[in-house]
């Protein structure tokens, strides 16, 4: 596996969308942003959260698993790529199977787009665009040790919980020190309702 990953800290995010603007500047997909920036507390606060591909490692890339034409490559270093333009038929399976809501679909182009960790940049030692520009390091790219050096009290968690399913990811989110439990993925609200017919 690769040593450097993205560490996401929504607590630091100021919602400025520099990441969104910068993603558009990536050479491999100029003009099209693959990152999501959501205001997660609308009406109450200016809280925001960026979403990049988490590069799921166990189970490996659900998006690639549900792809009917094997269009989503998974690199030897665990990077889950954007759909191959030759193969993708634009069916939308990955869009809805991704537990994090990452892939985007261009219906007219019959093509899926998703974050590939700026493979063209990161494979050459440059920082991914989003993490490079993020004014607050809410998106931080580096090794876990580098993260700790900057933020001694941070914990990085790479396990997410979607109801009964735990998903281990390549990228991680930052949690307060000592909080090692799986990060809730937002699904539990619904899965409890599913189980409770009332």
């Amino acid at each position, binding site marked *: 596996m690769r040593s450097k990953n993205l560490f996401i800290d*929504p*607590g*630091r995010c100021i919602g400025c969308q520099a990441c969104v603007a910068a993603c558009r500047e990536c050479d*491999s997909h100029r003009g099209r942003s693959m990152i*999501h920036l*959501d*205001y*997660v*507390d609308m009406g109450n606060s200016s*809280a*925001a*959260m960026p979403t990049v591909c988490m590069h799921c490692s166990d*189970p*490996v890339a*659900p998006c*690639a*698993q*549900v792809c*009917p*034409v*094997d269009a989503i*490559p998974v*690199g030897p270093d665990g990077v889950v*790529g954007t759909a*191959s*333009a*030759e*193969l993708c*038929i634009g*069916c*939308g*399976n990955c*869009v*809805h*199977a*991704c*537990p*994090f*809501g990452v*892939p985007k679909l261009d219906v007219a*182009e*019959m*093509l899926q787009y998703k974050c590939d960790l700026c493979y*063209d940049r990161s*494979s050459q030692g440059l920082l991914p665009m989003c993490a490079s520009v993020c004014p607050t390091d809410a998106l931080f790219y580096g090794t876990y040790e580098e993260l700790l050096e900057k933020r001694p009290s941070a914990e990085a968690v790479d396990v997410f919980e*979607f*109801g*009964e*399913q735990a998903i281990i990811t390549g990228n991680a*989110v930052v*949690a307060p020190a000592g909080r090692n439990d799986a*990060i*809730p*993925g*937002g*699904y*539990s*609200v*619904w*899965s409890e309702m599913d189980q409770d017919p009332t």
Partner: protein
Amino acid sequence: MPPRDPRFPPETGHDRRAIAAGSVAALVLTAAILAGSRSLDNFDVALLGYALGTIFLAFGVTYRTVIWAGSPAARRYLVRGWKALLAKPGKSVPVSEVPRTLISTLLLQRFIAQRSIPRWLAHQGLFWGVVTATMITFPLTFGWIHFRAVAGSESGYWIYVMGMRTAKIDALGIVGWLAFHGLNFSAVLVIGGGAWFLHRRWRERANNLTQLGRDLMPLIALMAISFTGLALTVSSVLMGGFGYRPMALVHMCTVVLTLIWIPFGKFFHTVQRPAMIGVHLHKQGTLGSDGALMCRSCGAPLEGAVFVSDLQETMGELGLNYAGWVNTCPSCKRIARGAQYREQVKAGF
């Protein structure tokens, strides 16, 4: 050890079935060659390499297709897609929809034009070049078509199809000239399109996860076939046959290697995309009828109910135990995760 990829089940039964299917396909093609060439009477031995390569191709493509179709997502879509394609016209989608989809998606590839016009032009070049070349060469190498000089004519030829004499053609006439130089036109189309794609690869910093084998090799192979093929024409027309035989050997090698490669590289999309052509009809049909689902969080339109239940079954088969999550739209998924992070992990700095 990385976790097992459940798309490729380890049970050997499936594998054996694929080998068997591939073998059957290879045998069927061999039989067809024997029949079509009148027990090899009309078979050109110089083209033996091509024919063997194609027989292997039949094995490979069938083997790969069976393996591929065995994965849960592909299987479901293949069934749905072909049902939609072969359904009684007008039942779920308008009658004109089937031919429209076939023409606009398979032949004109309008979706590529949406990505970019130069890319579309280049792909059309590759596509029509390869299609015409295949239509010309496969029957020739199988011995299904051959030509015999018309007695007493300097440029007249009889066309034999499956051993039966059909029409006469004048090699110096327009039709004849086009027919005999068809492969040259194919080569020019392929070279034009391929050059654009190679140029893109060359100019852009390593594209997304570009791999030499998967991405670049097929392009290089097509270009090699086209160039060596054109070189044959140049040799015979302009250079009085100089270097023709070694060049013919090189040409055959490039072709045979490419044929063998097809099932494993990205060329396999030439099988996959037509096979999946019905999927869009299927999705359109399920959305058009009463089966559209709404995101259960925000109420925005999601997908067809059949799409969702299919995907949920697929996920179940793959051991992804959060199929209920599919009923929520991606945007609401992210916002729900953000909200839970705020509530349960940390709200602030």
